[in-house]
């Protein structure tokens, strides 16, 4: 109940997905001044990581022009006017001054994997490679006591300055003791609280870290929740999706580098620049939706003609994310482009409520009482039948035993 009240209060204070992109010259001038000052400050700081964006780009055979093209796209994505492009480029260069501690909790490491494993990494992914990852359970060579020491040292050195990136949900239910970390067997919850205590802000990456994701799916055996449910006294930026789009992670970190602040968030704590779009409104199959042309089964004539995937369970109409615009892998493609409906991976409770291959109207849903699973129509027809039987009985008794006014 308390949670619901809190969510309600949040909704009333959020201003929808809208970002004002026309704030007048004076606003942008002062913003630019502020960013310039901050970047100079960061530049003067020693770079914590040994790799630079320049060397990484060169190793991948990318030149300055590719990099500037990326910078202007990133500027547009952050909804800044074009004259900010050099600043965004600069921010990418000094990004390795912002220390990051990356925690891996209850998850499949899919977000790290998505960033690290691509065979032709995008500039977004390369930038994530050069950020100063002070600690990352998946990547680092150290283990056991050594790793713990390393973490403590990083937390002390960068106290109050580091970004804590979290991947994976936090079990807080009866199953929480199944998930411990390190030589002292800290639970994930304690581990997160400890690391969060010295962070400037937290970035929850992927749907598990934001809303609990797959581990939180019914019956949620470990009582999995997202970072925002555990950490209440620090800014938490949510970057859901499964996996989170590297462009959105980079965009958020860039924003933090540029301003030292959290970007404008929607009512679910997601950056508006990334989650202010509805999949359905930017989908290339939308004309087929409006026309009523749907894929009826996998591989049918409709599928061959790229018809709308609504009847195959596409949840684009209820999902907010920018993958229909920025897409994945250097904008090569995205799930709907590849022929599968959206499963709403950036929405809360997506595994239970969105991720099925049929429209909501045909999905078996748990009754509010937690009992049998029925489709809404099965439930509704049951209701109509019950009402029909009730009326029938009343009518029959009325006929047999009722008293008409006319009868004496």
């Amino acid at each position, binding site marked *: 109940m308390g949670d619901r009240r809190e969510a309600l209060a949040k909704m009333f204070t959020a201003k929808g*997905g*809208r970002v004002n992109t026309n704030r007048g010259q004076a606003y942008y001038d002062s913003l630019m001044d502020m960013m310039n000052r901050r970047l100079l400050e960061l530049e003067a700081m020693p770079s914590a990581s040994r790799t630079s964006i320049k060397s990484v780009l060169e190793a991948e055979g990318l030149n300055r022009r590719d990099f500037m093209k990326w910078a202007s796209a990133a500027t547009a994505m952050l909804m800044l006017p074009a004259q900010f492009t050099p600043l965004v480029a600069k921010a990418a260069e000094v990004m390795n001054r912002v220390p990051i501690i990356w925690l891996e909790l209850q998850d499949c490491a899919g977000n790290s994997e998505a960033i690290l494993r691509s065979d032709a990494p995008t500039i977004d992914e390369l930038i994530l490679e050069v950020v100063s990852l002070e600690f990352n359970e998946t990547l680092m060579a150290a283990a056991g006591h050594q790793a713990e020491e390393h973490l403590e040292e990083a937390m002390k050195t960068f106290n109050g300055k580091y970004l804590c990136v979290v991947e994976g949900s936090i079990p807080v239910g009866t199953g929480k003791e199944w998930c411990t970390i390190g030589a002292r067997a800290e639970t994930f919850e304690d581990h997160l609280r400890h690391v969060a205590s010295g962070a400037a802000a937290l970035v929850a990456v992927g749907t598990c870290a934001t809303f609990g994701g797959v581990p939180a799916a019914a019956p949620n055996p470990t009582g999995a929740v997202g970072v925002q449910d555990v950490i209440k006294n620090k800014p938490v930026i949510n970057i859901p999706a499964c996996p989170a789009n590297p462009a959105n992670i980079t965009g958020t970190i860039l924003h933090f580098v540029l301003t030292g602040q959290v970007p404008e968030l929607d009512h679910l704590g997601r950056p508006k620049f990334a989650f202010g*779009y509805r999949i359905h409104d930017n989908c290339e199959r939308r004309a087929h*939706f409006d026309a009523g042309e749907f894929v009826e089964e996998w591989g049918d004539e409709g599928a061959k003609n790229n018809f709308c995937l609504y*009847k195959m369970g596409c949840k684009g109409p209820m999902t907010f994310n920018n993958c229909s615009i920025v897409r994945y892998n250097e904008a090569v493609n995205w799930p709907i482009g590849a022929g599968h409906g959206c499963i709403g991976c950036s929405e809360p409770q997506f595994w239970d*409520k969105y991720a099925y291959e049929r429209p909501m109207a045909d999905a078996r849903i748990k009754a509010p009482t937690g009992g049998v699973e029925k489709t*809404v129509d099965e439930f509704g027809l049951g209701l109509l039948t019950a009402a029909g039987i009730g*009326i029938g009985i009343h009518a029959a008794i009325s006929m047999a035993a009722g008293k008409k006014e006319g009868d004496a």
Partner: protein
Amino acid sequence: MAYKRVERMTAFMRINHWVVAICMVAAVVTGLYIGHPYYQSLIADPAVDKYVMAWNRWIHFIAAIIFDVSSIVVAYLYFFSRFEKPYKKLLPTPKNIMEFFLVFFNLITFNRTKGFDSSHGDSFNAVFFFVFHLLLAWMLFSGLQLYVHGLAHGQSSIGTWWPAMLHLATDWTVVVCGGTYMDVRIWHHMSMYFIIVWVMIHVYYQIWRTIFWQEGDIGIVIGGSKFVKEN
């Protein structure tokens, strides 16, 4: 036995009734299509020529808008009608509560007891219709929440105030339904069945009253009046 004609619904109220009834059917037929498109568009035509889903959604919204206007008018009439002011029958005064139960007993005793005056609208009827208006209001709020999802950019042809107002007026439905947009959709769809059940009972009760009270109640919604016995 002498009968007296009593006026029960003005012409305007009757028109409103039938407009709502037609909208209801239109909303159900198109709503079910939106939820699960149950007929196929001809594949041979190019997409720009047909717009089957778009028309269904359009009719759904138009039915919804007419509903909107009608419920605002009905809400107004609750208080300011120069005819019968329904809110007077809704207030839980001892007299109204008494009347509510008398009419209810009449129904469940199959008209063997009838201890109230059936010439004017009664409290049972007022409560029954109030339930309908609540259901309608709920459809409006949940439907407008689904609608505002399409205005994520915060703009509309009539200005930014429209989506902003819709968010303010309907965002609570997400929290009430269970926290996700999908929950609103589930509840919007499920509530349709509550409304259909209401309509079934409503139609049955009107026919039942006509047969057992013998006062021509069914004529109210057509000619505006019914007949009551004089003494």
